[in-house]
């Protein structure tokens, strides 16, 4: 299962997506400003069992993207987020 590191809270405010640190942590003491793709990743992460599944869930939201090109990029990006422990895999 994937879930957002509970040292952070995801918030969407009038179309702006933010990861706000709640507790002292090793990743970031500053609020993180998310682009649309990153926001989708954090919105969907709790519906996925692993990085590959999350990448597929996010990819489904892109209607005109080239799967062979975009999916590996998404997986890499998600893997980085898991390595950085912004997304926790358990």
């Amino acid at each position: 299962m994937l879930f957002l590191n509970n040292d952070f809270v995801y918030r969407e405010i009038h179309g702006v997506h933010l990861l706000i640190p709640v507790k002292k942590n090793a990743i970031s003491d500053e609020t993180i400003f998310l682009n649309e793709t990153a926001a989708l990743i954090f919105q969907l992460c709790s519906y996925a069992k692993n990085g590959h599944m999350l990448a597929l869930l996010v990819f489904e939201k892109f209607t005109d993207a080239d799967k062979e090109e975009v999916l590996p990029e998404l997986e890499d990006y998600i893997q980085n987020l898991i390595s950085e422990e912004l997304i926790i895999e358990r």
Partner: protein
Amino acid sequence: MECLSGEQKWSQFIEQHFADIRAPFTAGMELLPDCNFKCIHCYAASDRCNTISSMTTEQIYKIVDILVEHGCLELYFTGGECLLHKDFFEIYIYAKKKGILVSVLTNGSLINQKHIELWLEYPPELISISLYGASKDTYEKITGCREGYRQVMDAISLLQKNNIHFELKIIGMRQNYEDIPEMRNFIRGCGQVNSILAWDIRPMNNGDCEPIICRVTPAQSMKIELQDPERRAFLEHLAFDEKRIAKTERQKGGYLYPCAAGYQFVFITYDGHMQSYVKAVDPRYDLLHGDFDEGWKYLGEEYVNRKASTNFKCLTCDKFRYCGQCSAAFKSETGDPETPVPFYCERGELMKKFMENISNLRISQQ
């Protein structure tokens, strides 16, 4: 992904992304009316009587939830003295866990190791301490608490030692006037530049004008500011900003509250009233017996959209950019938001002259 960091980040962020949206992106909340200090200049009438009812902790949680639903990003807790609240720790953590950036406005005297541990684990956006003097005597004169000075100095050491983000601000008044240069030096020694030095003593929020006797004269306030090298440099910098003489959009628009009180800020009092600004005590909205959306709309009509009469001098005044104009403060002191308090006008005149002199000097040097 990018991080937001640095001073002023949130005001800039809100302006950049939400300039045209009226929502309570920032808020202040009084947790309780009680205070361990009894400051002679304080506007809070509540700490001088004992028959006050305040919000329950559950009501506070509910209001935090409502603020989050409405987009609140920044919230500061105040009082009274908010650290006196029996559930301060729980309330603070509750707001943090909702994804709010929380600041704490305090007199500093009650900060102890437990608060430090809390703030190390759940970092605050800012701990903002009001500094009242540079000695035990001054503290006693203003706060009625002789130990206050030592307690606050100990608290500042604790915050520094633990690298917790804090600011020190000064409310200048007759009772600490002589101390202000020393207080400013102390604040500079804490590594804080261009700290807040305010002079806006105002009546109590029950209308009692007793605090006004603490106010310095406009000339005294200017003298202190111009003697302070840092403050003087700041004012000289402002003097070269051409925008300082332009009318603001709201001034041009003929609004009664040219500062846009209530546009993106809401203040919640200890008894659950919504105000558009700390000083804007009348009119206000009883949130505990109403609905936030209705209150927000009401404050919008009363403050954001309210137009002034054609007699309102501030809208055409050339000192407007210099005086710290505040229609809500005028109302609490004169009973009429369109009747300026002379202190503001006189200070505006002095500040305008100073800025013009600096600006003219530069032109003649060119």
